[in-house]
């Protein structure tokens, strides 16, 4: 690792991994080529966050994005989707915001079934490893999130991705 010279950037291998760590935990990891303060900023400033949270390729649009990323602050995202007549709202509050290393929020739209999302930002050699950890209140809640995304056929991947997209870490859209 340390053998690479500063002037020669390390070949990029920033694969996204997703792992079901336990009955109640889902973990997503990814490394970014920037210091933690920059990556953290992109997760906590609404005008930046809304530029990446809804990837262009997924046919959803973000109607509004309110975020007050401070410990005790709240967030509220409203999406619209062609398949749904009503806009869908996702909301919760930040229980810990420690720049530039840690971010914890609740997912309250699903009532008791919502996950607690903890995102950590670990900096090393100018890069930042982001670990996003969703802790579901029960095994059933995570199973339900998985089952809701895996019931339809293989050809419907994009519809399922849409379902996942509107309910990041939050289980089933209500």
């Amino acid at each position: 690792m340390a053998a690479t010279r500063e002037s020669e950037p390390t070949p990029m291998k920033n694969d996204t991994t997703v792992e079901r760590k336990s009955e109640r935990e889902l973990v997503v990891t990814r490394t970014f080529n920037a210091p933690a303060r920059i990556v953290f900023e992109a997760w906590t400033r609404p005008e930046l966050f809304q530029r990446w949270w809804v990837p262009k390729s997924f046919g959803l649009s973000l109607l509004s994005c309110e975020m007050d990323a401070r410990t005790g602050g709240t967030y509220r995202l409203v999406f619209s989707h062609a398949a749904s007549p009503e806009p869908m709202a996702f909301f919760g509050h930040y229980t810990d915001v420690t720049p530039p290393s840690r971010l914890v929020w609740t997912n309250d739209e699903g009532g008791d079934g919502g996950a607690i999302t903890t995102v950590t930002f670990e900096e090393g050699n100018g890069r930042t490893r982001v670990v996003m950890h969703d802790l579901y209140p029960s095994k059933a809640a995570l199973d339900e999130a998985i089952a809701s995304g895996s019931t339809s056929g293989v050809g419907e991947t994009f519809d399922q991705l849409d379902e996942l997209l509107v309910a990041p870490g939050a289980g089933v859209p209500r």
Partner: protein
Amino acid sequence: MVQYQQARFDASFAALSDATRRGVLEQLGRADASITELADRFEMTLTGMKKHVGVLEHAGLVVTEKVGRVRHCRLGRPLAQEAAWIEKHRQLWEARFTELDAVVEELKRKEQADGRNTRK
């Protein structure tokens, strides 16, 4: 259906609590194998491996079929289903993070430009 799936997931996680059984699943993810082959690979007795495969089969993680005197093992459906969901989830996050890369690059450039301006 949902009930059935959840019972399956319960059994799945019990089955996955053992390192050898996780190894067997990983192995079967690469290629189907007979119980004898699995026993060899994991350096255990045929009886021991039969027990492990039995637990995995009960959980629906592995399907076995006897052909002649050989019992063939392959991955079962629930695990495949969960793995498929995980992969879809990963694609979603990869798409998000690709966009996030662009945002991050822009912020980096801005910071570098600002840094140069202050130094001058």
